[in-house]
């Protein structure tokens, strides 16, 4: 569907280097990365808005590298909605129809989409006094109104309140399910990516770090950056021999298969378990340690446990902490399940 070959963009002191991504038809693809990693630049290059330095962009089997934006059939939705302030809601949504052949069916399809998304009653309203959630719905329907083959979503949820964000997430899922359109969404929130995306890629400083299924990005990072970005707070250099990883402070038993030449291990704080008393012997990778810090994060807490002078991060709910009477300076036992430990070469 979308094939990006060796794409390079040099743009006022920033470079996007040799990006290769293949996105399948009707896929929901997420592009992840921190602020300033080049996500928006890549999306605008696909839309034909940003000129590229080298490489190819193929959409639906056609080379679109030098095709102007209006001929690409690629819609774009921005974080700040980019609605036309001098037009009404309906005029915004029907804006693109003037450039595409359309009939009564298309108008009915648009009305159905507006009805499903709850904005039909806003048809004659001006944009000025609408809420963020309403504006984002209008921007989405406007992009879909012209039946694009691809919709590019540039952080569409970032500027919304949490309540609206959940609504729009569900709406995106519904729109993706009910249309033939391929979705490419830019985000720096991996919870959003996990909820919506089927496959994804992670960009860092203009370089593609990893591309694959969202689950693989989440569970099997291939670089330290991806591991950190996807929430692996426990990452250590290690000597790995068969199923045993030796760090400076402890040894861990690993699950097979192990990444060839792996020299790093990482695991999530959420996967690590903590006990007040020594757990029974069936658990491997059990260590004794002392709670050094507890940080309240609202619905959960981050614990930092000192194991042989190394701090291990553990996440747990407040009720678990209360039930086990965990507190700073308390001696505890830590179990790191071997299936939770991931290895990679760097």
């Amino acid at each position, binding site marked *: 569907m979308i094939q990006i070959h060796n794409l390079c963009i040099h743009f006022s002191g920033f470079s996007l280097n040799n990006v290769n991504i293949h996105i399948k038809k009707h896929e929901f693809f997420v592009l992840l990365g921190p602020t300033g990693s080049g996500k928006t630049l890549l999306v*605008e290059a696909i*839309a*034909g*808005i940003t000129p590229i330095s080298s490489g190819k962009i193929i959409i639906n089997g056609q080379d679109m590298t030098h095709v*102007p*934006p*209006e001929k*690409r059939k*690629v*819609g*774009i939705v*921005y974080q*700040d909605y*980019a609605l*036309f*302030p*001098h037009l009404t809601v309906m005029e915004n949504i029907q*804006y*693109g129809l*003037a*450039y*595409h052949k359309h009939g009564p069916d298309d108008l009915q399809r648009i009305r159905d989409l507006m009805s499903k998304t709850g904005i039909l009653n806003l048809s004659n309203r001006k944009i*000025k006094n609408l809420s963020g959630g309403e504006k984002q719905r209008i921007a989405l329907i*406007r*992009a879909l109104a*012209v039946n*694009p083959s691809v919709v590019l979503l540039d952080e569409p949820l970032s500027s919304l309140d949490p309540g609206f964000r959940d609504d729009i997430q569900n709406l995106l899922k519904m729109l993706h399910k009910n249309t033939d359109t391929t979705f490419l969404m830019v985000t720096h929130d991996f919870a959003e990516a996990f909820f919506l995306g089927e496959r994804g890629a992670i960009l860092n400083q203009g370089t593609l770090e990893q591309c694959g299924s969202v689950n693989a990005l989440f569970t099997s990072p291939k670089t330290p950056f991806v591991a950190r970005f996807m929430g692996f707070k426990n990452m250590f250099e290690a000597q790995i021999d068969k199923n045993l990883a030796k760090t400076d402070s402890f040894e861990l038993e690993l699950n097979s298969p192990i990444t060839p030449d792996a020299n790093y291990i990482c695991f999530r704080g959420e996967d690590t378990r903590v006990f007040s008393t020594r757990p029974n012997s069936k658990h491997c990778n059990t260590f004794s340690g002392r709670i050094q810090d507890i940080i309240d994060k609202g619905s959960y807490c981050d614990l930092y446990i000192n194991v042989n002078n190394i701090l291990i991060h553990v996440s747990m709910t407040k009720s678990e902490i209360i039930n086990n009477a965990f507190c700073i300076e308390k001696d505890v036992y830590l179990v790191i399940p071997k299936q939770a430990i991931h290895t990679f070469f760097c």
Partner: protein
Amino acid sequence: MKRHYDPFLIVSIISCVSVSLFILAPIIQLLLGPSWVIILESMRDPDIQKAIGLSLYTSGIAALIALIIGTPFAYLLARKSFFGKRVIEGIIDLPIVIPHPVIGIAILGIVGKQHWLGALLHRMGVYLMGTISGIVIVLTFVGMPFYINTVKNGFEAIPVRLENVSRSLGASFRSTFFRITLPLAFRSIIVGFIMCFARAISEFGAVVVVAYHPMTAPVLIYERFTSYGLKYSQPIAVLLILISLLLFIALRLISRKDINL
């Protein structure tokens, strides 16, 4: 309880009143100077009617030329980065800083018979010295920076993402410009037009060098002042102020419809 006033607020209010008085005092004096009988008499004076008409006409044409030529140029400056952009922006501002008689002399230098361009224009039957065309050229020259700078700021205030979305929906560059950019920049275009018109209608120094005749209102005011004194120049000045004021209020009302970007 005694109310406390911030010293900075007091200084600001004093500054506001002094500046307003500084600007308004001579204008109020000018408006109150001649009696309404004299002003009404002046309105019937064919020379005054002709001069004011010429000022309005030439300033309007100059502002229109600035609008036609300056709008695409302002868009280019607002949207594109290119080598030498700063130099070009500096060149546009030059007419603001050059003394006005110097502008007149500079224009005369290029359209005079001694210059190849002037000679060519003469052969083509285009005469600028002492003609309406000459006045329009001078007024366009002095008014253009005000138009371009105002409209450039207007274009810059329109998020480029609106244009990107329009293109992605199938609109060409031209269509996007006319359906999105231009309507959103309408207010700044009107303001730029007013600024250019205002600058042009008040121009004296450059016009008097290129075309003493036919007489524009500022030149006639100068002539009446030097030949007959203050009493005879004041009514024309009052009329010019009133006409300008009416015109600007009308244009402001037209452009009142504001759009939140």
